[in-house]
């Protein structure tokens, strides 16, 4: 049972990670863009929507 639960959790996080790679590529924005206008890495990401 533990095998199924742990494998399920890993599968979900794995899918989420792969989706993130795909989305980052297609949107052309890095992870830092979600952190308040990209202050983490120097600005210039599209923070308009995220601030709403």
């Amino acid at each position: 049972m533990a095998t199924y639960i742990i494998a399920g959790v890993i599968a979900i996080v794995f899918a989420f990670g792969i989706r993130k790679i795909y989305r980052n590529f297609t949107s052309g924005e890095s992870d830092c863009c979600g952190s308040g206008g990209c202050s983490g890495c120097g600005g210039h990401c599209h923070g308009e929507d995220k601030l709403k």
Partner: protein
Amino acid sequence: MATLSIALIGNPNTGKSTIFNELTGARQKIGNWPGVTIDKKVGYLKYKERAISIVDLPGTYSINARSPEEKIVVQYLMDAHSDLVVDVVDASNLERNLFLTVQLLEMAVPVLVDLNMMDEASRRGININTYELEKALGMPVVETVGRSSKSTRKLLDVFTSTVMKDYEPSALVAEHMQAVKALQNSGLEEAKLEEEIIILRYALVDKLMAQAVTVNSVGPTFSEKLDRILANGFLALPLLLLLLYAIFEITFTWFGKPLQEALSDFINGDVTDWAKASLETLDVAPWLQSLVTDGIINGVGSVISFVPLIFTLFFFLSFLDGTGYMARVAFIMDPIMRRAGLSGKGIMPLIMGFGCGVPAIMGARALDSEKDRMISILITPFLTCGAKLPIMALFAAMFFPDNAANVVFCMYVAGVLMAILMAKVLNVSTFKDKESTFLLELPPYRMPDMKTVLLETWEKGKGYLVKAGTIIFAMSVLIWFLSNYNFDGPTEEMSESFLAAIGSAMSALFVFHGFDTWESGAAIVTGILAKESVVSTMGILYGVADISTETENVMDTAAQLANSMGASFTTLSALAFMVFTQLYTPCVTALGTIKKETGKWKWTFFAALYTFAAAWIVSLLVYQVGRLLGFE
């Protein structure tokens, strides 16, 4: 609930984003140099039963719709019709700032002047009679000190209580507007008309200054004295290098490395042991135990262990950013950048590239010419972003334990030199265009706001952790699967796995580079998806956790990896590998950004391939020249 829309406008580096953050609670990037904001940003707040939307516009010296920033501002003013336009003015530089104010008056938009940085003005002996200025302009004038929440609250009170229709342009302003109108109807040719109107604007600024401002001579300011050393003469560049070197020394030798080693030992020791014991107790299938310990903990753990280094390095870079020194870097680098065909302004996006290539590529929008923009986008991938830092740190600690900080520093410098060299090559071969002009205002040195510095450092660390928990996690699972399976199912020998086949195909390109193992080839392939994956791939393939538990002496990750990787790399081939990973194809996210910013697949493929080719050549030179010189 009544609504109110407000736009923050002003010259670059007048503190608009600081005020925006104070008002809205947002965490917009703040930097003590011009051009930090190139896009408009919107924030919302509620105050005294009013819903207020605030737009932070890019800094601009005028509104003539020439530069990208000016175009955004003009477009916004024409389309949005804000209830109130707050002109954030640097009180210590009032005369120059008032030019934009006069232009806003001519547009007949409801303007409120915010005299920001009043503390700085006082220090420079500038006394502004706010009442007289308000009278001379015929519009409300508020004094603020951007970082003081009390003074920005004062702004909110004015927003919500000022009835703009009660204000009318003063006689002085009305006279100016009539004169402008008369000129516009005079039939003068466009260039002459513009020149005449500019003369009128400066005349009005002179009158406003005479009416409301007195200046006491206070001698050279602290910034001016400091700039005589830091930004002038032959000492400027060596001092810049010395400063950066000191940061690397502190990061790698003093603070970052001990913390990184402690975290690494914790992950490879306690966490791995606990995970193994727990999985065995829960009777989890052996393949899943291997996935968790050999794949996920090794892969993600090897990346997470570098978080202290990231935090330490970017704390110092954020601190420098806040002092105003970064603007001097552009000034110091201008002659060098100019030789490469770029202006010093082009260094600004590159500085961001030390954090992450994505905003750096986006930041190239601020550059004036298409040529500068394209070159900046294409050379950014050569810089050492935060994601490459673990690769450099890992290999430096492994193969150059006594000179780790020096080697990493040299890799950073090599990245910058390569970027400048390629800018020159692209300038003479691909993007032949006229030279751009470069005008940069040096902001005064300031003690950075520690809250902002710590916040920025935290944001970086957080972004890195989020990436480790998502992208690197997924990559670790994928690498584990590819390195443990082949077409016949599970395999005991990694050298017969899918990943070995992929890595072998790639490694064929590096026969003359000294790192033609399938493990290196695999790490190079996974590094294109995310640069940190180079480290996680090494962690998985060379099994850090296994070594850690088998080693009785307490050894740091680098030493453990060095034991297992000694057969794969010599010191020289490790250096060649570092050079290659420093310079080769940017990660997929950066490639996506290049596609978005250039609008063409052609440039995306070009960026991917030419960086790979450049890295291949430089790495080959390092290895072969090193061998000729007798290194191994």
